[in-house]
C-alpha cells in the first residue's frame, strides 16, 4: 500500500531488464497488442503504487515476478481498446462475470444487472479528458484477474445495497422490522474507564488475524465456514481459534484489570456486568454505516472502491 512509490525505474540493471523482458514474453502482450514500452510503463506504475520510494531493484524484481503477467497484459490491452484482447477476455470471463454476480447477489436478475453494470465499467463508459476510461486499467496483476473481478463486483454490490437502503423510508424500515442502532442501549451502560483501557490493551496485543476472527464472528456474525474461506484455512481451525480466544480474552482482561489496581473480585464484577452474547445484525449495521467516513471517501476517490 505504499503510496509514495518508486519514483523512477530508469537505470535498470541488466538482470532486471532481463526479468522484465522475460515477463513481457510470458505475458503475451505482443499478441494482445501491447508493446514492450507500454508494458514496461505498466510495470513502473505498479512499482510506484506498491513499493516505497527507497525500494531496491531486488524488491522490484520480486514484485514483477509475483505479478500475473498474462492477465495483466490482457487487462491493460483491453483497457487500451485492443480488439484481440477483448475477444480473449470475453471468451474467458463473460460467463464467469454472470456466475460471480449470481454468487454475490444470490439472485439471478440482480446478478445479471450487476454483471451488466460491471461490464459497462470494464468496457469504459466514463470519459476523462475526452478519453474512454476502462476499469480494467486499475488491475495490477497482484491477484488473479478473476479474483479481482470478484472483488470489484463485491464492492459494487455493497455500494448499491447501501444506496438502496438510504432510499428506503423510515416507515418501510419499521415495517420490515429493521432495527436502528443498538448503540444507544450500549451507550447507556456506564463502563469503568479501567475496563475499557484493559480491554484495549488486550485487544491491541492480539495478532491482527485474531482480531479479524473476533470481529468477523462476534460483530459481523459470519459463520465459521465463511471466515475460514476468507482466510483460506479449514473451518475447524477457526472453530478452535474462536474457542481459544473467547476463553483467553476473559483471563487476560482480568489480569490487566488486576494490573490497574482492581481486586480479583472487583475485576470479576466489572466483567460480569454484561457478559452476554453479542449479536449484531450486519445488514442493519451496514445500512446504518452508510455515512462511514473512510468508505465514503474511498467511493469519492474511485467509484467502485479503488481506494488507493
Amino acid at each position, binding site marked *: 500500500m505504499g503510496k509514495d512509490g518508486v519514483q523512477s525505474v530508469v537505470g535498470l540493471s541488466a538482470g532486471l531488464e532481463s526479468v522484465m523482458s522475460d515477463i513481457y514474453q510470458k505475458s503475451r502482450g505482443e499478441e494482445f497488442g501491447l508493446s514492450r514500452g507500454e508494458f514496461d510503463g505498466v510495470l513502473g506504475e505498479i512499482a510506484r503504487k506498491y513499493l516505497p520510494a527507497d525500494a531496491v531493484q531486488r524488491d522490484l524484481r520480486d514484485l514483477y515476478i509475483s505479478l500475473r503477467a498474462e492477465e495483466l497484459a490482457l487487462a491493460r490491452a483491453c483497457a487500451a481498446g485492443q480488439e484481440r484482447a477483448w475477444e480473449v477476455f470475453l471468451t474467458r470471463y463473460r460467463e464467469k462475470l454472470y456466475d460471480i454476480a449470481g454468487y454475490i447477489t444470490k439472485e439471478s436478475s440482480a446478478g445479471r444487472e450487476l454483471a451488466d453494470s460491471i461490464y459497462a465499467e470494464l468496457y469504459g463508459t466514463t470519459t476523462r479528458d475526452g478519453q474512454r476510461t476502462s476499469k480494467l486499467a*486499475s488491475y495490477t496483476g497482484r491477484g488473479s484477474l478473476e*479474483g479481482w473481478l470478484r472483488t470489484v463486483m*463485491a464492492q459494487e454490490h455493497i455500494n448499491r445495497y447501501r444506496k438502496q437502503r438510504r432510499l428506503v423510508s423510515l416507515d418501510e424500515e419499521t415495517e420490515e422490522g429493521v432495527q436502528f442502532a443498538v448503540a444507544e442501549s450500549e451507550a447507556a451502560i456506564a463502563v469503568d474507564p479501567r475496563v475499557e483501557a484493559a480491554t*484495549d490493551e488486550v485487544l491491541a496485543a492480539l495478532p491482527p488475524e485474531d482480531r479479524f476472527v*473476533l470481529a468477523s464472528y462476534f460483530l*459481523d456474525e459470519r459463520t465459521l465456514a465463511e471466515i475460514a474461506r476468507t482466510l483460506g484455512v479449514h473451518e*475447524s481451525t477457526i472453530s478452535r481459534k474462536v474457542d481459544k480466544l*473467547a476463553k483467553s480474552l476473559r483471563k487476560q482482561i482480568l489480569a490487566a484489570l488486576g494490573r490497574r489496581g482492581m481486586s480479583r473480585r472487583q475485576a470479576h464484577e466489572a466483567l460480569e456486568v454484561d457478559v452476554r452474547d453479542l449479536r449484531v445484525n450486519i445488514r442493519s449495521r451496514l445500512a446504518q*454505516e452508510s455515512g462511514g467516513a473512510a468508505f465514503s471517501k474511498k467511493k469519492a476517490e474511485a467509484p467502485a472502491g479503488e481506494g488507493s
Partner: protein
Amino acid sequence: MAEIPKIVGQRLRAIAEVGEHPDSNLLSAFVERGLGKRERVQVLEHLSQCTSCREIASLSATEVADAAPVVVASPGWTSWPVVRWGAVAACLVVVSAVVTLHHKREPRQMAASIAEVKPATEMLPGPNSAIGKKSASLPLPASNSEAKAGFASKNIASQQKAGPANLEAGNNAAAAPGPVEMADARPSLSQPLSQPEVPGRAKDAFMESQVAQADRTTGGAMAKKRSMLASEVSSDALLPPALIPRWTLSSDGTLQRSLDSGRTWETIPVSNQTTFRALAANGLDIWVGGSGGALFHSSDAGQRWTQVRPVANGEALTDDIIGVEFTDTLHGKLTTSDDESWATADAGQTWQKP
C-alpha cells in the same frame, strides 16, 4: 456458541477505521493468499477494523474449485460430465460383474477350505486388529487414488502406460507360494492402485489376486475374508470413485460431508449426544472428536462409524476433544480442552499421554 465479554465487542467496534482501504487488487490477492507476509499483516490489520472491507473480502472468497484457473475447453465427447458419468457407469458394470463371478465361485471354495480355517486365522496379526481393520479398508485408498486419476486426465494416461507392468506384478504376487501373512501381502496390495484403466477396475484386480492367493494357501479363512472384502468393495462402490469427500463441522457441532467439492453439504449422523469440535480427514479415513471425550472413526468416508474410547494409564479420556490430527491412518494426536495431548500409533487401539 463461544461468548466474549460484551466490553470486548464494544471496544472492537470502537476501534476507528484508520488509514486508507486496501484496493481491490490487494484484497483479491489477500483472499487468494497471494500476498507476502508484510502486506498480508497490513491487510489483516485493516480488515480487523473495517466492517466494509471484511464484507467485501468475505463476498470475494469463493470455493477453491471455483477460483481455479479458467480453462477454455472445447465441449464434446471429452467434456467432463461425459467422462465423469461414463466412468461411474463403467465402474458399476465392473463391480456388478465381479460380485456375480464371486457368487458363482463361492460354494466350491467353501467346501475346500473348512479344515484350514484355524491356521489361517493364526496368521493374522493378533490383538493388533488395526492391521485387520486395515485389510478391511484396503480398497479405500485405491478409490482415493482413482479419484485423483479421475480428476487429472494426465494421471490416467500415465497410469495406463504403467498398467501392464503393475498387472504383471500383481499376478506374480498372486502366484507366490507359501503362507499368507497380511503384513507381507500389503505391498502387493498397493500394486493394482496404479492401473485403473477404468475406475473401480483396480479394486477388482486386487480382489481377484487376493482371492487367488488365499485359495492356494489358506482356503476357507480367506474365502470368508473374501466375502467380507467383496461386500466392502460393493459398498465402497456406492461412493462415486471420482469424488473425494470434503468434511466440515457446522457451528452447532454436527459433522457434514460434501461429495461435490463443497457445493452442497449433508449432515452425517454420528452421535446425537455429541457436539463435535474437531476432525481429521485423510482420504476416506475420517476421525471426529468432541464433547466428553467422544471420538469416532470411519474408514469408509463416513458410511460406518466406530466409537473409540481412548484410555491411557488406566484413565479414560473425558475432557472435550478440541483438536484431532492424523498424519496417516495409524498415527494420530488428540488435543483436549485441558491442553492435554493423547497420541496413538496404532489407529486408536492404544493411547499414550505424555
